[in-house]
């Protein structure tokens, strides 16, 4: 445990950002994919992992080499209107996610028999106080330790005796379905894995932690391994859920998702799942609002650091506080948690390509990154990733508008 904490102590923004991606929304979306389409989304996850590595690396590079967060870079490199549009999109995407993080907290605590009406407000105050008044980095590590509960998913995936041949075949070869439901879930998977808040957080946290271009080698390893690690867990969530309840249709509750852990821990599956969900939700409930605060404070130029006091950075903490309050309040409203969470991921999936375009243009510009700009191969791969994500999102948006779903 001591060694584990020592490792966690030196974790960089890349791993934290990517791990926060396996948040309440992520876990429920991956579990929903396994429950609804069994192993069919696995190949998509391989492609998404490539895209995630490419995107997170670009964002970390932008943060380290320019010393600016994405919000600031967009303000300096694009028009005032583009900056405003980007900030509004990020705010909308993150507001939806913050709600789903608190809904995740509520669902996790409900498994322990605590009503969301009690757990959500207490958690909101806890997350706010830890970030604003306490030591944020210590809190971050605590939340990360809780997410280790999800290591149970790989174990469950093996013990659940999935069809190995089918898993392998779905991992290396696409088995997509030509249905609206599959397309929506594909966009939700992209939306929950490649999220704007992870991009903004990765760049800003690199700046906040003072990582210099000379140290970029280490930061690149952190960004790439963080992205791969986070997606390996995601793939195991899909496999474990598919083995347990695959083909049973869309996920109805968090408790159903916990069933996938039963082969690993037997009757304690719901409790272990709840621990993991709580850690993931707590981590993301602080990271998501922080990424909005970083971005908007960055774009306006206001002081922005978790090491600043409340008085030194009023805008930064003001935006953070507002999101926590609104997120927790909306999460307490009655409704279907899983559908709320998956819808927030779809919204993210639609907004993501728009914000990714900014990232791609910035990382391609030599006046921004100099010699550290995207090379020709990287540029081609990144362009294809952004284009594919964009086309999928556009199709879902079009189908939704035309009412084809």
């Amino acid at each position, binding site marked *: 445990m001591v060694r584990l904490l020592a490792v966690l102590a030196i974790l960089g923004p890349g791993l934290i950002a990517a791990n926060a991606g396996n948040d309440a929304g992520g876990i429920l979306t991956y579990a929903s994919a396994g429950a609804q389409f069994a192993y069919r989304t696995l190949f998509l996850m391989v492609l998404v992992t490539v895209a995630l590595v490419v995107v997170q690396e670009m964002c970390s590079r932008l943060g380290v080499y320019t*010393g600016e967060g994405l919000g*600031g870079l967009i*303000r*300096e490199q694009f028009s*005032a209107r583009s900056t405003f549009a980007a900030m509004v999109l990020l705010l909308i995407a993150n507001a939806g996610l913050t709600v789903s993080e608190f809904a995740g907290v509520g669902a996790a605590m409900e498994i322990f028999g605590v009503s969301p009406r009690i757990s959500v407000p207490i958690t909101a105050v806890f997350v706010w106080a830890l970030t604003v008044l306490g030591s944020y980095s210590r809190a971050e590590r605590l939340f990360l330790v809780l997410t280790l509960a999800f290591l149970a998913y790989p174990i469950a995936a093996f013990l659940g005796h999935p069809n190995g041949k089918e898993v392998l075949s779905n991992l290396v070869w696409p088995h997509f379905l030509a249905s609206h439901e599959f397309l929506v879930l594909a966009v939700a998977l992209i939306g929950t894995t490649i999220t704007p808040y992870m991009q903004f957080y990765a760049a800003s946290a690199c700046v906040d932690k003072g990582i*210099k271009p000379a140290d970029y080698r280490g930061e690149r390893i952190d960004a790439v391994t963080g992205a791969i690690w986070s997606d390996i867990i995601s793939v195991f969530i899909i496999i474990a859920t598919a083995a347990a309840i695959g083909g049973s249709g869309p996920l109805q509750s968090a408790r159903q998702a916990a069933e996938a852990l039963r082969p690993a821990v037997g009757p304690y599956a719901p409790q272990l799942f709840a621990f993991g969900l709580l850690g993931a939700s707590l981590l993301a409930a602080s990271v998501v609002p922080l990424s909005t605060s970083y971005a908007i404070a960055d774009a306006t*130029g206001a*002081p922005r650091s978790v090491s600043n006091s409340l008085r030194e950075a009023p805008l930064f903490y003001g935006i953070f506080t507002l999101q926590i309050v609104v997120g927790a309040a909306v999460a307490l409203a009655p409704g279907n948690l899983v559908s709320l969470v998956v819808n927030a991921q779809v919204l993210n999936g639609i907004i993501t390509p728009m914000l990714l375009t900014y990232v791609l243009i910035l990382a391609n510009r030599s006046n*921004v*990154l100099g010699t550290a700009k995207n090379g020709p191969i990287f540029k081609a791969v990144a362009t294809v990733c952004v284009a594919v994500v964009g086309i999928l999102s556009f199709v879902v948006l079009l189908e939704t508008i035309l009412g084809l779903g």
Partner: protein
Amino acid sequence: MAKPDKRRTTRRGAVSAALQKRISARRTIADQTISLAHLLGRPVLDDAGTRVGKVSDVVVRWDAGVTHPLVVAVLVGVGRGLAHVDLQDVALTQARVRLRSGRQIVSRPVRAEGEVALARDVLDRQLVDVAGVQVVRAADVYLVNGPRGWELAGIDVGVRSFGRRLLPKRRICPPPDRAIDWAELQTFVPRFPASAMPGKDGPAAAAGIIGGGVQLGRPAAQLKKLRARDMAAILAELGRGQQAQVAALATPSAAVEALRQLTSAQRAALLAELSESDRTRLQAMLDGGDAS
């Protein structure tokens, strides 16, 4: 029924006259000030009135000891390229830039030694205080037509100023929201010491470096006090008639604060230009403030 109508007409007439006065005062001042954010993208016309390009940037010369650098050129976007036009070859207004007789478009490096391109190097850049704290970004850059010609007056860091940029561009210079006199700004600072332009020295060398900013000569906490100083600096540069009009535009408290920044001779000259009622009111506020 006739009485209220008459009263309404009279009042409307009075309001309208005051408004007219205010608008005409603003127009006069607006002729002498230019907002860079609203100038960018405006058409550049030749002497026959034909559009030859659009304003891409405004270049100032950074000389040691000069508090308000002089505008030396306009960068004109022609097709996908940039042309450098000396200021003496153009007439600069908020709505358009007109080339004087014969086009003088010269192609040369966009930024020569000691020159700063305002849109690229200052607008939207981070402002850093003496303690290295990043405070705010420049939402606009103001140029004033002073006795020496067009010069860099200061930057505006107000949210309203940024908000105005989301709307269609203004043809008349909008008033500053939270202006900072350029004299308060010391130098350009790169984020990383080694990232200044290679082979260049001097304060302008770090201009335009991504992640860099403009350094303020005072702590961030004093930032809000700068508006009056900035106004005073602008007032001191302008003619006396215009000073009065600037003072008329300001809120009484801001005007009093600005007046306090002037020398007693400048203050007396400015007060003499005002109407009897304005003079009495401002003088009373000045005396009241001094007494307290």
